[in-house]
């Protein structure tokens, strides 16, 4: 193309040509394929330049932000590798990690079971200095997982102290362990209605009671009522994910 042609392109695009010149220009576009090709590229480049410079500020801001996010993402990825040095104990660690992963994977693949989630610790019902034999019996039996014996003791204790939330709660747990779900759930429902510190724990165990009975839908519904901030909230969310 001649210099004149490019000047013509620009004038055509700006609408600076006379009527006759426009007709002549458009006729040439149809008859001269080289002319048409150059004109198309000229337009494409004009729009490229326009976008390039008009959007430059926003584009630079984007690229800087992107670089930062990318950098920190990849640094995080690299970090553990840099500390790796091959030492014999590392192989042992690696092997146990693999074992752990396979256990976790296995657990993830199979349906969740009650035993994996029941997270009560040993209990301590006796207050220092107070020598109540029955409390001792309940405590020891519960901690030794003799739930039948524990439940007997709880039953007797609750006759005397029927509003004791702690006794109700551990009695409920014992009943779940003994597969006496109906009894357990009455106790838990009572705790859920109340305002004791066992309120949220009771919801969690009510869900677990349903889990143990393989009532997965009910379990799911109950889990969703555990408020954020409850001790078992995170565990509940994980279980929800598995059941969903």
């Amino acid at each position, binding site marked *: *193309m001649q*210099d004149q*042609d*490019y*000047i013509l*392109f*620009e*004038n055509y695009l700006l609408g600076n040509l006379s009527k006759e010149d426009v007709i002549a220009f458009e006729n040439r576009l149809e008859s001269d394929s080289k002319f048409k*090709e*150059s004109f198309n*590229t*000229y337009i*494409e*480049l*004009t*729009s*490229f*330049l*326009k*976008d*390039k*410079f*008009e*959007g*430059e500020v*926003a*584009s630079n*801001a*984007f*690229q800087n*932000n*992107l*670089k930062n*996010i*990318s950098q920190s*993402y*990849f640094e995080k*990825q*690299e970090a553990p590798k840099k500390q790796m040095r091959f030492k014999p104990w590392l192989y042992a660690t690696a092997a146990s990690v693999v074992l752990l992963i396979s256990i976790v994977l296995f657990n993830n693949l199979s349906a969740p079971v009650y035993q994996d989630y029941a997270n009560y610790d040993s209990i301590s019902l006796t207050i220092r200095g107070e020598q109540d034999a029955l409390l001792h019996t309940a405590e020891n039996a519960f901690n030794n997982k003799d739930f039948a014996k524990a439940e007997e003791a709880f039953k007797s204790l609750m006759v005397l102290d029927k509003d004791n939330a702690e006794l109700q709660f551990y009695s409920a747990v014992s009943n779940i362990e003994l597969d006496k779900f109906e009894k357990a759930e009455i106790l838990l429902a009572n705790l859920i209605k109340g305002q004791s510190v066992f309120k949220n724990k009771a919801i969690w165990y009510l869900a677990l009671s349903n889990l143990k009975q393989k009532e997965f839908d009910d379990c799911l519904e109950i889990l969703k009522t555990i408020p954020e901030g409850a001790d078992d909230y995170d565990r509940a969310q994980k279980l929800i994910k598995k059941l969903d």
Partner: protein
Amino acid sequence: MSEKKTHEDQKYIDGLLKNNSFIIQAIYDKFVPKVINYIKQNSGSSDEAQDIIQDTLITIYNQASQKKLELTCPFDAYFFLLCKRKWLNELKKSSNKEVTINEEVLYKDDDAQELAFETSLFGEKQALFTEMFQKLGNACKELLTATFKIKSMEEVATSLGVSYAYARKKKSLCIGKLTELVQESPKFNQLNN
């Protein structure tokens, strides 16, 4: 084409366009690991993966801001195909590397293929145009930069200390020069076919 519905993953495109850090982070968390794996399995390093991913996101941003980009497929497929294509091009360039490419079709989604193709074509053209722009003489570079930044040709003329008529004529000749540089490059003909 007009019947196609915009995919809900359009939120990632819009987020990139708004420079939304939360969305960018989400893209890294959700979609990047797969790309890193792919590149590492195909003779690449983590650093190379980082560059490919960054370049790809910039291309998507540019296309979205300049041409309107409507996603009609999952972002995952679109993004992965783009990165993959870019990486394969990279490998071809440095062909001394041994290429072991699993050419299994990972995404049968035609929309994704089509969109990824459009975007990578757009990206390659941008790269070519930028490269050719750098080859222009300083006078042209300066004039064109001023022209498209300032917009008013009168002001451009004043700022460069030339007459209005000269500035306008020079603008068309500079774009003309750029047109020739682009048309002469073998890459351009390759892209246009």
